[in-house]
């Protein structure tokens, strides 16, 4: 039981379960999944689809945060990606042809990768603080997106592009399949090779890891480029969902949601140790939370307040001070068993922060 309580996924999963239970109580058919025309339908499937863009952005964010950085520009990149893809499709002679759509996607992703590389350049080569380096693109990026769309909301009709947002593959939403697929591949690459450990080393102590032969600069650069690419993909999913590129509102505050997902998942903003599974649960929690608000009948106007209370509760529960109290409280009744060496890991993690 104590091990279960200590597991890094315990609190996020508990939050998710609480939300799902609350939803099921409010509307008993919440968890029901029906099959229609060979596609799965139902609230859980909806949640999976809504999680997709956030999951992609949060995935990039986790890697960036692992290297002690942060990427505030992902929301702007989302807007740029949608603007590029839809402007290209709208201006082409044949919006329905798959070639046009694939070119548009490639163009958008290439530009977003470039934007990520730019962030990485500022952070790793010029050594500018991540928060301010990405703040530059956060402000300028939406302006660039407006420039591309000419200040208007570009809308298109293109069946092949629409598949990205509302299509189904093997009965599951294409968006979800894509996002979870990318997530699985990245998680596999990061955790089954030394890459993840090297990233953690960079985050825990950049100087020491560089001295021991880790290519910190290249790694940092790579994660920002990856974050840009994933945000670009998320932008495609978002714009394909609405079939419109809104430079002002596409991906608005998604960077904050993504950072929340990462934090809820138990990755500290101070860098170093990260866990992708936590981010996955965090993204699901946020998407479910948004869904809950409508299911339970809370006015959408109150959503931010509700979000704030959940965030405050989760961050306070995860704060070092509160954890000390909690572990002290759980340890006291079973003081006869000698303390495991685990608690030693805790002062270590606070030391990184100081």
């Amino acid at each position, binding site marked *: 039981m104590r091990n279960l309580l200590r597991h890094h996924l315990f609190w996020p999963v508990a939050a998710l379960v609480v939300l799902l239970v609350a939803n099921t109580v409010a509307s008993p058919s919440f968890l029901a999944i029906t099959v229609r025309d060979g596609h799965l339908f139902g609230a859980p499937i909806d949640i999976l689809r809504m999680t997709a863009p956030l999951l992609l952005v949060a995935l990039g964010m986790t890697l960036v945060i692992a290297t002690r950085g*942060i990427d505030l520009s992902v929301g702007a990149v989302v807007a740029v990606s949608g603007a590029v893809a839809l402007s290209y499709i709208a201006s082409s002679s044949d919006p329905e042809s798959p070639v046009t759509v694939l070119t548009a996607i490639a163009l958008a992703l290439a530009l977003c990768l470039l934007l990520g590389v730019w962030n990485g350049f*500022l952070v790793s080569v*010029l*050594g*500018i*603080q991540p*928060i*301010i*380096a990405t*703040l*530059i*693109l*956060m*402000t*300028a*990026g*939406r*302006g*660039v997106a*407006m*420039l591309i769309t000419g*200040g208007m909301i570009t809308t298109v009709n293109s069946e092949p592009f629409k598949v990205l947002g509302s299509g189904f593959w093997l009965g599951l939403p294409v968006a979800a399949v894509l996002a979870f697929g990318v997530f699985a591949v990245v998680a596999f690459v990061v955790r089954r090779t030394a890459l993840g450990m090297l990233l953690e080393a960079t985050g825990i*102590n*950049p*100087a020491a890891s560089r001295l021991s032969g880790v290519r910190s600069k290249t790694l940092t650069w790579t994660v920002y480029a990856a974050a840009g690419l994933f945000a670009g993909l998320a932008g495609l999913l978002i714009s394909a969902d609405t079939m419109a590129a809104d*430079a002002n509102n596409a991906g608005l505050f998604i960077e*904050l949601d993504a*950072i*929340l997902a990462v*934090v809820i998942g138990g990755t*500290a*903003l*101070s860098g170093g140790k990260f866990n992708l599974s936590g981010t996955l649960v965090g993204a699901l929690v946020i998407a479910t939370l948004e869904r809950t608000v409508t299911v339970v009948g809370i*006015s959408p*106007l*109150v*959503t*931010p*307040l*509700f*979000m*704030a*209370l959940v*965030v*405050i509760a989760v*961050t*306070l529960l995860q*704060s*070092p*001070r*509160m954890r000390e109290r909690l572990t002290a409280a759980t340890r006291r009744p079973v003081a006869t068993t000698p303390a495991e060496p685990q608690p030693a890991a805790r002062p270590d993690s*606070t030391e*990184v*922060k*100081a």
Partner: protein
Amino acid sequence: MATSAPARAPRALKMPIRLDRRYLPVVGTFVVLALMLVVGGSRYDNFVSPAVISNLFINNAHLIVLAVGMTFVILTGGIDLSAGSVLALSTVVTAALLQAGWPPAVVIPLAVGAGTVIGLAHGVMVHYFQVQPFVATLAGMFFARGLCFVIAPESIAIDNASFVSLASWVQIFGGWRMSSGVLIALILVGLGFLVLHFTRFGRTVYAVGGGEQSALLMGLPVARTKVLAYVVSGTCAGLGGLLFAMYSRSGYSLTGVAMELDAIAAVVIGGTLLTGGTGFVLGSVLGVLVLGLIQTIITFEGTLSSWWTKIVIGVLLLIFVALQRVLTLRRT
């Protein structure tokens, strides 16, 4: 952040010889501001006129107040993402209470006090629970915005006679105009300057930002200072909301979306380092003026679309950050 701490010690020793370096970013901001005035003045008639300059202050009084508060928090090495939302909350509280018939003498302290309370909560979360400033104030941002919607989902006009007369108070000398909002903002800037440079609290703010561990070992009241910095920022956001309510004569829950970013950008352009410990309130004011002037130039140009504002602000941020980077690199 931890790695840069040891590098700071030798820098402090050299301070007397290189004192002017501290002022370089601020001087840079001033030069940019002057250049913009010169370029604007040569391109458009009536650009450098008392009316335009007065409007620059009148339109940005609330942002100046936000930037002053933000400077305190950033100097301690933190950040306050809630400023825009707290500003909105303050406008909504003002408008809603005035609509309910409360006298301004009660409403005004309440609106500003709402900011103070939220700031206090941030400070407590950041210092006592060791929540990252970014996350704590992010939660505060959602909280304040949500509270706005609970109080009033729609825009409320302010028609209380004494509040309107306070808001429309204008002092005119020659072509210059000064609204009550500008007067309050300027008084606050003066106060901020005095507090940072001539009080024990101000010195401690710099010390905490320069190196929290060292400040703690020196026996400085780190806890109180950090919490107070967030209280100052929250109060400033509350006051900024009051000024915005006076300026727009209404309270609306969607005002000030992303305004905290403008405030942060102004502070950075004004030469304050986001790592904390270096920077000036007056620099932040210059930063706000630069941002306001970009807007003015784009309005004067007429043919340029408003989104160029964002791009220009981004480019300016880049230039200033790169400049700061070069300066700090040379110093170490």
